[in-house]
């Protein structure tokens, strides 16, 4: 859940004309039915239940009472919530452009056909995607260690004293590095796959018109993969706002830097499972969900409108 989902369900777009135009029957339901049944159980029911929960409050005296939108009011004035949202927003603003930028540059390099050993590059850079967030974080956590990690080794070998990646000032950047490492290759592959299917005749036409490599990239390649760029951005936004695994696993290594309300997701988890405040936790999760959806929607609108 806290990993970036693969490029799930791109975006609403007109469905292709179904094969059997004239036979409008219920047969399709026989095949789609099982998916929809489980989907209702694990997606729709929890969302509905979540909304229901958010309207109640459990009090020491008086038990569970209906409080209308009070929980939402509380969330909107909750400093801990806003602090965690600010943290993931900063993370989003810095990490996502870096990650997608590197992914795009590598995809363009692969697509240019000017690399030696392209297939090796493509597969190797993709591999970290197969590494679970837990393992990735444990690994980087070891390497970050100033005492016996790689950072410590470098300090010892060069006689320098690198800043501690797990210090409160740097830990967010260190988490950003882990997430970047995990998903650069994945995003690269999405961009690369989109670049592969740009009609080749466009490049020839550009060459005849005297366009250079850079011009081909800005005038043909980037516009052609705009859809993939927008989707990768949206999923990175969702991923950033859902950040949980990496900070949660690093927490024992950096107990002073990473609090239980470090990200909105950590906060809802702590509220629910340490604080037993299920109702308020559901409310915070819904608010976070609405914010995420709103931003994803704006990005999609803007991304699709820009240019021609």
């Amino acid at each position: 859940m806290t990993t970036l989902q693969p490029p799930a369900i791109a975006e609403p777009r007109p469905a292709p004309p179904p094969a059997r135009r004239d036979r409008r029957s219920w047969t399709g339901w026989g095949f789609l039915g099982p998916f929809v049944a489980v989907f209702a159980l694990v997606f729709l029911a929890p969302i509905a239940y979540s909304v229901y929960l958010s309207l109640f409050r459990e009090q020491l005296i008086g038990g569970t009472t209906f409080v209308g939108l009070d929980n939402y009011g509380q969330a909107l004035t909750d400093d801990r919530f806003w602090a965690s949202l600010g943290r993931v927003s900063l993370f989003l603003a810095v990490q996502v452009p870096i990650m997608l930028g590197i992914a795009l540059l590598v995809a363009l390099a692969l697509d240019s056909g000017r690399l030696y050993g392209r297939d090796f590059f493509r597969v190797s850079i993709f591999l970290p995607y197969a590494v679970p967030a837990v393992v990735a974080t444990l690994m980087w956590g070891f390497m970050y260690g100033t005492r016996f990690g790689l950072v410590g080794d470098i300090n010892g070998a060069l006689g320098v004293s690198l800043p501690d990646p797990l210090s409160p000032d740097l830990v967010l950047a260190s988490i950003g590095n882990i997430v970047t490492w995990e998903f650069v290759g994945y995003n690269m592959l999405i961009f690369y796959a989109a670049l592969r299917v740009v009609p080749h005749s466009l490049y020839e036409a550009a060459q005849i018109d005297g366009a250079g490599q850079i011009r081909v990239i800005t005038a043909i390649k980037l516009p052609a993969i705009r859809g993939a760029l927008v989707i990768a951005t949206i999923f990175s936004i969702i991923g950033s706002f859902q950040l949980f695994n990496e900070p949660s696993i690093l927490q024992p290594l950096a107990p002073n830097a990473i609090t239980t309300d470090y990200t909105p997701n950590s906060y809802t988890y702590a509220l629910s499972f340490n604080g037993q405040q299920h109702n308020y936790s559901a409310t915070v999760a819904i608010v976070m969900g609405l914010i995420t959806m709103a931003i994803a929607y704006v990005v999609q609108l803007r991304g699709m409108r820009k240019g021609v």
Partner: protein
Amino acid sequence: MTSPAATAVDRSAPAPSGPSGSAPRLRTSRRRHSSDQPRRSVLLTVLTGLVLLYSLVPLIWLAVSATKTQEGLSRSFGLWFDGDFALWDNIGETFTYDDGVFTRWLLNTLLYVGLGAGGATLLAVLGGYALAKFRFPGRRAVFAVVIGAVAVPGTALAVPTFLMFSEMGLTNTPWAVIIPSLISPFGLYLMWVFATEAIPTELMEAARIDGAGEVRTFFRVALPLLAPGIVTVLLFTMVATWNNYFLPLVMLKDPDWYPLTLGLNSWNAQAATAGGEAVFNLVVTGSLITILPLIAAFLLLQRYWQSGLAAGSVKE
């Protein structure tokens, strides 16, 4: 206005036409493309090599560190071997430590992946086939709801799902992990796109004229044509299930039901608890063992999943 549908039209040319043709066709088009620009660049290769190093160095660190004893981990340089080569000891100890609980976690993970990812793939294949090849009442509504729900962050679902499952008596059982894993909207989407392109409607009509029922048509005509798409979806649902951490963390209390991810983290965390034994060498070796199956699967099945993914990206 560049709508995704419009770009899809531009890109129609190299879309794989079917399982038999897709992988080779992708290959040849790639080769042709590169031969147009034969001037390879050392500079570009070196620059991209930096990203390659970034991607591989941690994995090399992991592989090298798995050969070290716990003391060796702290006394030797991270990217080179220690005097003692303890890989085999580490592997043996990983599987036997604490009454072989790692083996148990591995079997749990295999169970969750088998039923979760396998089931998710099956549901996605059936559903994608239906969306691609049938028109039926409510089809558009289903699609809209699935898309809308995907934008809901998992966080919003975890707590209510836990509470719901708790009331149903499912928490702390394998079902709490398996059932939510059964839904892969990405898988549904990919299969839908793939089935649209891979199954000629005429072939289905021909089967029906020959008297085949819907089930028979699906198994005999559609399923073989969907193979590369199925491999792609299976790999990605496998990764999602194998690597899942948050869902089991929420749902499971009993370490006997942990998957590898949760188990490894508990080993790592036990060093920080009072009286807990530090087993960093086992954490490292266990991590290596955890990632190897997936990396092997990706490498072995490359040509299938890449063609399947390319078909999906056409529509993005």
